[in-house]
């Protein structure tokens, strides 16, 4: 039996039934990123204003004159989702003070892809975290610039094929290691940081709720399987997210006021090859490269485990 989480059984009872992201959106078949958006919106509820950087999720949700958003939503430039969300938060505080809306009722949310977060929006994100805005930032990480046709980002994993890191005679794919933006967020000493995955929906929903509940900035990094860019079967999107966690390629943890906690702690780790072999973007990898990835993953997981024990 595919055990997802202890509480996942009878899901409809524990998950908010409302949908704040409508069907009819134009995401690819089996898109894990749009599932993440749907679940995050369920967790957020109606009292939010979302500022979103461009990327697949902006494009598939808002082909004019349509919008899939059932909550107030702003499309902003690629680099400034966090800056706009900071402004929205500041404005909310002002109109609350003037008594025009109830106090502490509406939350400002920022969203971006990995390109919009780990590369181009990193500066505005850092500014938002440093100034201490009461904003939740959600990064949907599908590990490349997917909307413009799969270009590598600093979040693309080592060895992965993208159109700008093509494997061949002179290259084995992405030659750099994935940037860890969750750790960069932790370094800002903000009250809440978490990693999450739609393959663990209850965990994801709980983390978003905790992120909203803290006073001050929160950052949630969501691994989002992209069948189009990862060259994987659309029906495998949930399974791949689970394998990423079970092989410790993408561990699920949270850091509340500096205190680390693994929220999903697999009793025994799977080899990374279980995760890699279902994806065409890793098909060219030699055993030697897979070994390098395994070594790095084991090492980093050890460090994380230590932090969780502190």
């Amino acid at each position, binding site marked *: *039996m*595919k055990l*997802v989480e202890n509480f*996942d*059984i*009878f*899901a*409809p009872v524990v*998950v908010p039934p409302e*949908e704040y*992201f*409508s*069907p*009819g*959106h*134009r*995401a690819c*078949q*089996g*898109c*894990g990123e*749009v*599932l993440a958006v*749907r679940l995050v919106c369920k967790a957020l509820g109606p009292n939010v204003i979302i500022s979103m950087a461009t990327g697949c999720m902006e494009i598939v*949700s*808002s*082909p*004019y*004159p*349509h*919008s*899939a*958003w*059932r*909550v107030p939503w702003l499309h902003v430039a690629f680099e400034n989702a966090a800056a706009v969300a900071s402004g929205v938060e500041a404005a909310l505080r002002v109109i609350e003070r003037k008594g025009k809306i109830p106090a502490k009722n509406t939350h400002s949310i920022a969203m971006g892809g990995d390109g919009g977060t780990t590369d181009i929006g990193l500066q505005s994100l850092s500014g938002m975290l440093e100034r201490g805005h009461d904003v939740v930032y959600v990064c949907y990480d599908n590990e490349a610039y997917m909307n413009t046709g799969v270009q590598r980002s600093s979040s693309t994993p080592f060895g992965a094929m993208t159109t700008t890191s093509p494997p061949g005679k002179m290259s084995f794919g992405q030659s750099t290691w994935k940037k860890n933006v969750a750790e960069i967020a932790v370094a800002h000493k903000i009250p809440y940081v978490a990693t999450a995955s*739609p393959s663990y*929906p209850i965990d994801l929903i709980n983390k978003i709720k905790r992120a909203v509940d803290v006073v001050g900035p929160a950052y949630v990094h969501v691994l989002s399987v992209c069948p189009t860019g990862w060259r994987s*079967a*659309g*029906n*495998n*999107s*949930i*399974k791949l997210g689970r394998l990423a966690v079970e092989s410790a390629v993408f561990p699920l943890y949270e850091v509340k006021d500096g205190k680390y906690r693994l929220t999903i702690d697999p009793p025994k780790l799977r080899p990374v090859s279980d995760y890699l072999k279902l994806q065409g973007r890793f098909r060219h990898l030699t055993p030697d490269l897979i070994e390098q990835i395994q070594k790095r993953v084991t090492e980093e997981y050890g460090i994380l485990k230590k932090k969780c024990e502190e």
Partner: protein
Amino acid sequence: MPKETGKTRWQDLPIGFMITDAGNAAEYHTGTWRSQQPVRNNDRCFRCGMCYLFCPEGCIHRGPDGYFFADLRYCKGCGICAQECWSDTINMVEETE
């Protein structure tokens, strides 16, 4: 709200291209993209709701009988529901036309 005709005059557009009809993406039916459709054998279903939870379209609903069904106007036929179902209730079947 302008329709998707390409013939709207700019004077008719709301300021800031605001969309006031929230969630009107539902007017567009992505079911036409589908090459396979989920077919259910509810005898096997124990109504856990995995299919509902994992559907990227949010197009699986719970009927009054407690069983789940996909709204085929939106289902893109990705097959996640069939793959994730614990009891093999759902089969993906090739569309005929």
